[in-house]
């Protein structure tokens, strides 16, 4: 089995997408020379000759089907779409944001039209990989793809079994909260904007870049930041060690997400994740007490729970949660991929 991949991640500023892409590629032995782009149609013939399976990472922020369809038509080996998130769900969430906060239809949603997405999947997908059960269900709601196309949930892995331990060297309870990702409505930033003026003892250090919905995210952060002094946007995170050492709590207050890789990294590095039950990421944290409803009061309450918990108790909670996410190890994930792909 020799696997290659193709992607249209033209904006390499994406944080979560890049982390996951790199992780899956490394795990499956997809090197730089095995990674292709849709712009070089002739590489399709190289793919046909030299590989057994093609993984497709498709950034929905595309404006035309042309090029993608042409490329995929030429590929004759099994094509597996890695569904890193559900575009139509993002459109729904974005509409909610516009209706509630912007009330201006010009702040639209840029993506390939649903019919074109549906066409690409129908015509070309020989297999679909999701990162969580919710996305698998949502996919079936939004797209009409034949049941005969095999589907599987394989979350990205976090590391080798033996290495999945929490590094408590960084564990130093304080009021600093960290976040690394995209400051978007889907990632809970209206909740953050509403909450932080009322909890001045906490500081939120945001790291990140614009993300897929750049206009709206820019608008949102420019609206929030001038009104609060305890939130700071820092740009791209360059020093992860400092981040894990100086921030005690990791904030993932998503209204909708698929798999926030940095939430898991923060846990492994001794931070305490603060989660919302609306995020798919939280579904991996079983019996975890710091999962709030996506509303400011519940988040404030959960935050205070973390702050008031004795350090030893927090350590135990983190260790317990680790037991549940140990299934996201490299060895088991690799086996899942191999079993899935060899039957396609």
């Amino acid at each position, binding site marked *: 089995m020799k696997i290659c991949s193709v992607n249209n991640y033209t*904006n*390499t*500023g994406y944080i979560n997408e890049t982390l996951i892409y790199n992780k899956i590629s490394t795990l499956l032995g997809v090197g730089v020379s095995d990674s292709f782009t849709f712009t*070089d*149609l*002739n590489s399709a*013939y190289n793919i*046909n000759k030299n590989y057994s399976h093609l993984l497709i990472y498709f950034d929905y922020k595309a404006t035309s089907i042309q*090029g993608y369809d*042409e490329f995929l*038509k*030429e590929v004759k080996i099994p094509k597996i779409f890695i569904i890193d998130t559900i575009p139509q769900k993002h459109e729904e969430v974005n509409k909610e944001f516009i209706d509630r906060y912007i009330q201006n239809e010009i702040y639209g949603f840029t993506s390939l039209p649903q019919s074109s997405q549906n066409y690409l999947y129908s015509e070309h997908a020989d297999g679909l990989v999701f990162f969580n059960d919710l996305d698998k269900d949502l996919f079936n709601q939004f797209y009409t793809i034949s049941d005969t196309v095999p589907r599987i949930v394989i979350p990205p892995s976090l590391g080798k079994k033996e290495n999945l331990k929490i590094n408590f060297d960084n564990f130093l309870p304080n009021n600093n909260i960290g976040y690394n990702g995209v*400051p978007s409505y889907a990632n809970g930033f209206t909740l953050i904007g509403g909450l932080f003026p009322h909890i001045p003892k906490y500081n939120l250090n945001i790291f*990140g*870049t*614009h993300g897929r919905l*750049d*206009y709206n*995210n*820019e608008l949102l*952060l*420019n609206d929030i*930041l*001038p009104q609060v002094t305890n939130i700071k*946007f*820092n*740009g*791209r995170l*360059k*020093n992860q060690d400092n981040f894990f050492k100086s921030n005690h709590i990791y904030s993932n207050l998503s209204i909708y997400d698929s798999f926030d890789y940095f939430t898991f990294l923060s846990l492994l590095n001794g931070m305490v994740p603060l989660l919302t039950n609306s995020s798919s990421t939280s579904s991996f944290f079983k019996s975890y007490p710091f999962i709030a409803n996506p509303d400011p009061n519940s988040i404030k309450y959960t935050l205070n729970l973390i702050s008031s918990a004795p350090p030893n108790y927090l350590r135990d909670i983190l260790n317990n949660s680790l037991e549940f996410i140990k299934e996201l190890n490299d060895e088991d994930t690799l086996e899942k991929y191999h079993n899935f792909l060899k039957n396609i």
Partner: protein
Amino acid sequence: MNTKYRTLGFDKIYVINLKRRNDRREKLTKSNPNIDFTFIEAVDGQDLTTEQLIEEGKLHTSFYDPSGMCTINIFACALSHKKAWDQALADGVENALILEDDIYFTTPFIDDNLKDLTPLYEDILNDINQYDWDIIQLGKKRQFTMGLPIGKYFVSPRYKSNFDGAHAYAVTKQTLQDLSNKCLPVKYAADVYVEEFYNTHNLFTLKESLIRQISDTSDPQNGDSDTYYNDYRIGGGKVGISFDEKGNVINKQIAKYIKHPKDILQQHTEIVLERPKFGIQTIIPQSGPNNKFFGMCDMLSFLSEKLSASSKMVEINSHFGENTFFFGSSGLFSNIYAIDALTGEDKFNIDNNITWEDVEIGFHSNTYFFNNINHIKNTPEDVVDSFDNISFLYINNRNGESIKSITSSYLFKMNQNGFIGGNNIGDAPKNHTKFKDGSWVSLIKYF
């Protein structure tokens, strides 16, 4: 007092300045007597040719620009910035402010009486130094820049929103190295290249530009810019801009063609600086008489004496449409059906780094003038039933494959006095007429 006030808080200030523009150097120095500038002699476009730069590995054969513009001085400017980065690295600075020589400060950065930074500028520096920056831009061509807010004064600009202007930016040592390492062969103008670092580095821009370029705030007709306006005027409006609004190449001394004209819309136009790989190259004279040209003319002249007026023809594997152009130009045919599936592995395409999309664009470029040419994107066998009474079937056989199945299926669709021809003499039946370029025609009765 800021100990580095004479270099505006940075280790050194490098100013890119053409040797022949001593006037700018003097003006900048005189108007800023308390600032220490280190001048870098700019690479002068007047001393360069595109071919020389490509040969030396300094310029890529494809140049990318958001608006599809390139000039020799834009290449020279990019090389000048690299020279400044390399000088800063050689000087061992921790950071450097890179300026172009035609800038001015919209507000004072130095209080000449106190011999110190002004409170506003000091506050700006203190503010941004709280952040882990790699590149900070103190001025752009536009007055205001939007983005994610970084402190009081800066933004992280949206990707692809911040191309214009590399006349005032500070860079850390590590990023100077990164900029220098990835610069050659030049593929972007200096400002576009710096913008690319948004994807991997912390690039922050002042919300309001405090360092501007003189040419940006003056009437474009009088603007003094060595990368653009000056050449544009000297060239009577035809030098400096490479393409007009329709994508036609104006300045062929530099740019040969735009790879995909639609890319202008995506702000990523690939401007090819070498001879086209596709298009009508087979009918462009290389050296001496062009047998391809004469062979095709002789064939059409031969057919003009044999075929009746308003004949219909089919061309198989029309590819870029070089021959189709001739068929259209001849006026012999009422309908020309050019058939090409535009799909599948093709040795010629791969060997020449051509894609089917290139082929489709090339065909359109060569034939759009003719209303009687129909481009049919399908296999010849699949569409054969659509035709009747064909007078001429021409088969391009680039890859030397057997044409038997095509000829046998199309024979029934041709009129009795029709002809079959092709570019590969190996396909011709015993009785045929051969032309200078190895192409041939034969009456269908010989098949």
